[in-house]
């Protein structure tokens, strides 16, 4: 996992409440090897017109949008299917952080495992940010994970980034969670042998 400390970027605004992971990456692309890069599948259907051409009105298709590594999203972003491909698509497209009022739980966890930082910001603040970006499309935000702070443009202020300390530490250091868990293997094995003693049928 790529470590994340601080990211400053313009922001692309992705409209729609309950933007589910089927919208982020349609199911038919989930067969692809990760080596192919999942960025090409990001918002595949909703960024295209009915004639299958890139829709110039979709935020990520606007000139300069490729510079944005931060997305502003609406409530319950990433709900639905647990497909980690949704996070791969965002990460492979170059997205490093998301700002929104709430995220689907499984999506939120998947993001953290891949170094993509989901920042929860109150709905009214998200609304103010969207309005500001509408007037100043080149305005930048800074996601400072090291300082646990989101710095918004204009007079929108600074806001705490609330992510559990454990996940934050893993992302800051780009830690490999499996390797880290292996340092507790003695405790895992002791627990397991007790559990198997009382639940012999579990591993039959």
């Amino acid at each position: 996992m790529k470590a994340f400390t601080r990211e400053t970027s313009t922001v692309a605004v992705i409209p729609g409440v309950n933007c589910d992971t089927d919208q982020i990456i349609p199911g038919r692309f989930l067969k692809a090897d990760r080596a192919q890069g999942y960025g090409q599948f990001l918002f595949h259907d909703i960024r295209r017109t009915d004639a299958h051409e890139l829709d110039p009105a979709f935020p990520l298709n606007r000139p300069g949008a490729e510079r944005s590594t931060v997305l502003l999203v609406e409530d319950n972003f990433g709900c639905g299917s647990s497909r980690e491909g949704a996070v791969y698509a965002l990460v492979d497209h170059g997205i490093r952080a998301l700002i929104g009022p709430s995220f689907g739980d499984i999506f939120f966890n998947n993001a953290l495992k891949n170094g993509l930082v989901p920042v929860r910001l109150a709905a009214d603040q998200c609304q103010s940010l969207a309005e500001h970006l509408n007037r100043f499309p080149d305005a930048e935000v800074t996601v400072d994970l090291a300082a646990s702070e989101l710095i918004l443009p204009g007079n929108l202020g600074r806001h705490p980034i609330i992510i559990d300390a454990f996940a934050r530490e893993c992302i800051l250091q780009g830690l490999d969670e499996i390797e880290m868990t292996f340092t507790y293997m003695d405790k895992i094995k002791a627990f397991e042998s007790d559990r198997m003693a009382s639940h012999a049928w579990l591993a039959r």
Partner: protein
Amino acid sequence: MLGKIWDEHEILRHPSGPSLLYIDRDMIHEGSFHAFADLKRRGMKPRRPKQIFGVADHYVPTLGRTSSAAASPAIAHMIDTFDENMEWGGVRHFGLTSRAQGIVHVVAPEQGITLPGLTIVCSDSHTSTQGALGAIAFGIGQSENAHVLATQTIWQLRPKTMRVTINGRLGHGVTAKDVMLALIARIGAAGAGGHAIEFAGQVVRDMSIEGRLTLCNMSIEAAARFGMVAPDETTFAYVRGRNYAPNDGEWEGAVSHWRSLVSDADAEFDREIVMDGSDIAPMVTWGTSPEDALSIEDRVPDPASFESADKRKAVEKSLDYMELAPGTALSGLKLDKVFIGSCTNSRIEDLRAAAAILKGRKATIPAIVVPGSTQVKEQAEREGLAAIFRDAGFEWRDSGCSMCAAMNGDVVGPGERCASTSNRNFVGRQGPGARTHLVSPAMAAAAAIHGCLTDVRRI
């Protein structure tokens, strides 16, 4: 109940918050190829293969039981890769020709893999289904899946608790599916975010395990982490004698432990929702989120009637996608297709409910039934249900996720309108441009007969 099962599985708590939970059983499907690639890169194998169960469901053909029957070579490759990974990892595997094959969340309870008091994960959001037996069961991603395969553990923050109490009785023609659509319409698709739901009340106590599985299945559509029902005599009777359950010698001890897991009478929940079963009508969705659900007697809402500006925008967009005008009566809305299947509604009771409506009648539009497992399929054939479906003009298919996930080539065409017993009416979920109306199996059967959304109580 959540606290008791959680504490029993907590190996340690990290100073920064999350618990390292022991995972009793991990279910895997074809999507696990990312996790296997990760293990191979690390030179690791699954650490506890006997606690892992593999079943092919998302990509499997429903017309034929070999990967060569798959809709495309790329889809066949997914099934073959899965078989190879199962072999490589030494994992117990219910492949296409196994009698135990089916949709993972139908197979797991059926085989006794899902049991009260266990922690169960699967890289599928509908793993919440399995909490119906009194387990902590939740969906994970492939990074977490690799972690479970490698360590048999997972780091998790304990969710908050929400009790949904459904009092009274359900009316004629009203099912667990309708209860969930009514609940999600009330609290919203994000309504239970960060919470574990425990379902309680007379309606739940009276409900079969199959109905409870439907309740817990759709908990994720309200954004809940888990859905759970306290184990009771109905649960124990269901579990006894299943393949991977405790044997006769172990039974009494297991049941007495399971009884101790139920929530205490004075247990406190972070949130309480109370519903009355008799207030719930047969439900149908009109939009592109499961929260867009109304009684079949209602009309398509006017976007202007919603309070939040975001929701007004979303409703306008979804009505445009669904090609529906505000004020249109839901009953009578013309359909192109009917799908009965998915981990929500493809168990034997679901098929019985649909067949009871179809008996002696004919579908007037194309309709398919995809049983949740090969065992369900065989049982339905023995009971004569398959003949009823066939006589009514339904296609009788082999088991798999089929037209719910629309990954195996079974899709609803662009612009087509489908009454579906699945769980998601998202834009493009059943295929690009497909329009989905979520309903119960009996409602789907009624819709097939009339070729339009129909109140099953009138049949």
